[in-house]
């Protein structure tokens, strides 16, 4: 379990990092997924571009109604951030479910978004919050909405030679309710199923619901049918049931080692009910 030989570069700026991404190069951020694949020789890039230490990629800030999280921000910083707790409570609730403290100390927001594991929490949060990804490349900088960013299994809108500089999510509004429900075999494992729910209410009535599911397809899965079933209704047994029924059309889970697609769909329904009941009770 030793990686194949690779070259190593530690750029001192984002622009320098981008210039190094020419050719068979891979970015090293927190390394929590990459180093395992290197050691297992599932990937063997010629060059590792180590972006740890690029100050411009770190940190959490709020500008107007937008929370901006630098790509190198560690999960642990999110977990401990008062800004995140107040302005992005969905993320605050999801982060403790990401693996274990040792992994959260190293793992980065940008790494998680770029890796785009469909069972990971942060990509699902980004989509549930309808956030955006800030990308830099040799052609300049661009911003891609979460809905367009996640394209398929481990496939994103990132082009060769690009890196993520930050993500942005709208700051939580007073009429928004959030809940994360997830079921994993053990604490810290990737979830067998889970929902990141962002619900905008007007009194008792749901104005809009963005329910995003992990482990329910090739990407984090936004359940549009379930959202539509809730919109205009109060959260009650009937609307919860309608949202659960809509999931069969919304989600596209596949079998894995822990459970079949049918089980995942069942669990997604259970998570839906639990999340919505919590939101209704809040």
């Amino acid at each position, binding site marked *: *379990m*030793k*990686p*194949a*030989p690779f070259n190593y570069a530690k750029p001192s700026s984002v622009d320098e990092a981008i210039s190094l991404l020419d050719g068979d190069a891979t970015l090293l951020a927190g390394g929590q997924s990459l180093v*395992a694949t290197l050691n*297992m*020789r599932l990937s063997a890039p010629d060059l590792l571009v180590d972006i740890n230490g690029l100050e411009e990629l770190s940190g959490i800030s709020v500008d107007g109604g937008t929370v901006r999280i630098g790509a190198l921000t560690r999960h642990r910083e999110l977990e401990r951030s008062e800004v995140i707790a107040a302005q992005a409570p969905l993320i605050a609730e999801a982060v403790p479910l990401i693996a274990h403290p040792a992994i959260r100390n190293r793992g980065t927001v940008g790494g998680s978004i770029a890796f785009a594991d469909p069972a990971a929490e942060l990509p699902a949060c980004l989509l549930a919050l309808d956030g955006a990804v800030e990308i830099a490349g040799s052609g300049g900088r661009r911003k891609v909405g979460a809905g367009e960013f996640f394209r398929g299994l481990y496939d994103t809108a990132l082009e060769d030679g690009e890196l993520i500089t930050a993500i942005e999510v709208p700051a939580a509004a007073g009429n928004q309710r959030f809940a994360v429900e997830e*079921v994993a*075999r*053990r*604490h*810290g*494992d990737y979830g*067998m199923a889970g929902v990141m729910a962002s619900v905008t209410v007007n009194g008792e009535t749901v104005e809009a619901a963005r329910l995003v599911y992990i482990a329910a397809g090739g990407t984090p899965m936004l359940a549009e049918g379930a959202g539509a079933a809730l919109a205009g209704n109060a959260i009650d047994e009937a609307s919860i049931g309608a949202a659960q029924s809509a999931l069969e059309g919304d989600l596209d889970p596949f079998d894995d*080692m*822990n*459970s*079949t697609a*049918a*089980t995942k769909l*069942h*669990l997604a329904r*259970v998570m839906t009910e639990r999340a919505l009941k919590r939101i209704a009770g809040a």
Partner: protein
Amino acid sequence: MADSPVVTVHDRPNSYIGRSVPRPNVQRLLHGRGTFTDDIKLPRMVHAAYLRSPFAHADIKSINADAAKAAPGVAGVFTGKEIAELCEPWVGVLSHLEGMRSPPQYPMAIDRARWQGEPVVAVVAETRAQAEDAVELVEVDWAELPAACDMTAALDADAPVIHEEYGNNLCWERIVDEGDVDAAFDQAAVVVEDEFTFGRHTGVTLEPRAIISSWDPSEEQLTVYMSTQGPHMLQAIFAKHFGLEEHRVRVICKDVGGAFGIKVHTYGDEIATAALTMLLKRPVKFIPDRMESFTADIHARHHTIKARMAVAEDGKILAIDFDDLTGIGPYSMYPRSSGIEINQVLNLTGGPYTIENYRARGRVVFQNKPLMCQYRAVGHPIATAMQEALVDHAAQALGMDVVEIREKNLVPDDAYPTKSITGMPFDKLSHHAAKDKLLGMVDYAGLRADQEKARESGIYRGIGFACMIEVTSPSPMFYGVGGAPISAQDGVTLRLDAKGNLIVASGVTEQGQGAEAVLSQVAATAVGVTPDKIKIITGDTEITPYGGGTWASRGTGIAGEAAAQAGHALRDQVLEVAGIMLQSEPRKLDIRDNAVVDADTGNERISLAEVGRVVYYRADTLPKDYQSELIATRHHVPKKFPFAFTNGIHCSHVEVDVDTGVVKLLNYWVVEDCGTVINPLLVEEQVRGGVIQGIGGALYEECLYSDEGQLLNGNLADYLVPMAAEMPDIQVGHVTSPNSDSELGAKGAGEGGTGGAPAAILNAVNDALLPLGARLTVNPMTPERVLRALGKTE
């Protein structure tokens, strides 16, 4: 110490028995000063990596290693054929398992690979990374063959036959038929029937297997540093298969980071590593990485069992009848064989109960998967889970409480010595006393009331019991009788040095379980010194007495007794020479707290340091016709009984989320009887660690394979070991029925936790699900399997 309350019959001034004395090696390990095999670096040492078969079954048409041989840092590349020229193959059968067969096995595959992970080509380089780089350059022309992976299908007429000379894939079959089983089933008020499946899992030692082999051609001396449980066994095996005299092989075992039965076998990659040092005349280190460990370490436990139990109206168990099948990979493991696990299932099932009619068939099947062999609590979790699930099932069928049915059937505590229906002799067990003690710890009525109340709000909690017996401290009837070079005896040498310190050397090994602590406590007590005066030496065939090592919970029961007897002998030597010095009769003297004292008054007469000084430096002051000795070796082997059986009872309290299938462990209780408890803290931690490994089998651990025999979860992200967050509190109580085969009275305590936990948890889950009509008979009980039992998923 003298002021301590009475704890055992071994109480005397200066007794450390029955007390939670800290382990002598703890400070060293906590300071990061342990020496694990991988910490050792020898001059000119090179590193091995193995190309392993990517297929479960494939012919090796050709191997081209030219590019690998030319790669940077490479010292040599060797095929299975080249290794086989140095080393005799082995056959993993035991002669007392009548009819068992297994063909000769070579260290590495030669013309055909028979499991995914079998070593095929050895590459040696200056670093492990270079060796791995060169492995990628080896070209093997494979011809994939149909594989017999599924163990139940492996006996089908159209299954690929792994060893063509045998005609089919049966390795061994044993049938037991006692009493009149058919008549008992005919008379039964109730017959319950279940089909059980126990998943294949593995040991996952924190430190992987590890070996450094070093051949000195000038002396024809092979030195092997190894993380192992049986240094003398490995010495015998290296000597035999390389054609060396045993004294030309030295096995050194420093610190071991967990073993659990994984490190007590003959692995091809380890034997090949010894061949590599002979070929290269340089020390060779081989440390399997975690991925290799998953496909090259032994696996364990995979069984499917059809079982039924006949019960009378009053709850009396009339008969057990079962048919067990287990798949062991393409060979029986050497030298312990892969038949012992199922043999244990056939021997142990029903053991806690009075049963007069018993029929069982066990079949051991070859298949194209990694070898299966003995892992902590060999066979016990299978036997206990089957037996205890049937007992609960019968209680439900009769409408009887699960404790009551056990009370009716447990062998009475005054019935000993007795034998089980399968002929296992029991010295003294205490099932009823243990059950009574457990019921004093568990508020059973309270738990039942809580269960009832919780169900009203849709919360499903369950209570599961498991009564069990455990094989410990085996006599030669376990392996020696079958022809294996595995010693059932063990020895301890005690030497008093010139400053009155006690040097203790033993053939058992320390693998993190505290064997050295136990030896220290027993030796300190028997001689009369304080533990700080003791130095323990284990794990070196050149300097320790010959012994079997550490397995089958034998360290305390066997080496502990040898330490006690050696301690008495050394004490007599000390008192003899002290008597001469003091002009006193030895019987009027005692040794306490490192000094010879008057036995009556406890007044110090002479320190052990002074005795040592006179004996070693001023022997001229002793009588000319007297020669003193301050060293004694004693060995111990169980003689009265083939095994020192112990017993225990477990209780698990769980909550099942019936919507997600997740089982939450709320609480856990164990009462065990391991005879004299030498160190309560160590026994309780053995029980807790054992229970946690049993929880692994019950809820989490399973080697998952594709139909083609590819391991799907060979890493610690996908293969789930139990972790702290999910573990319950585990409360441990003791009953003490001393072993009558020794003065110390100790039996083993290392495996009962693992043996009992799957049964207790299975019963607790089924108790929780009872009102919903769901029943599980499978381990591990994954959320999906729970949901399937509930009819909530396909």
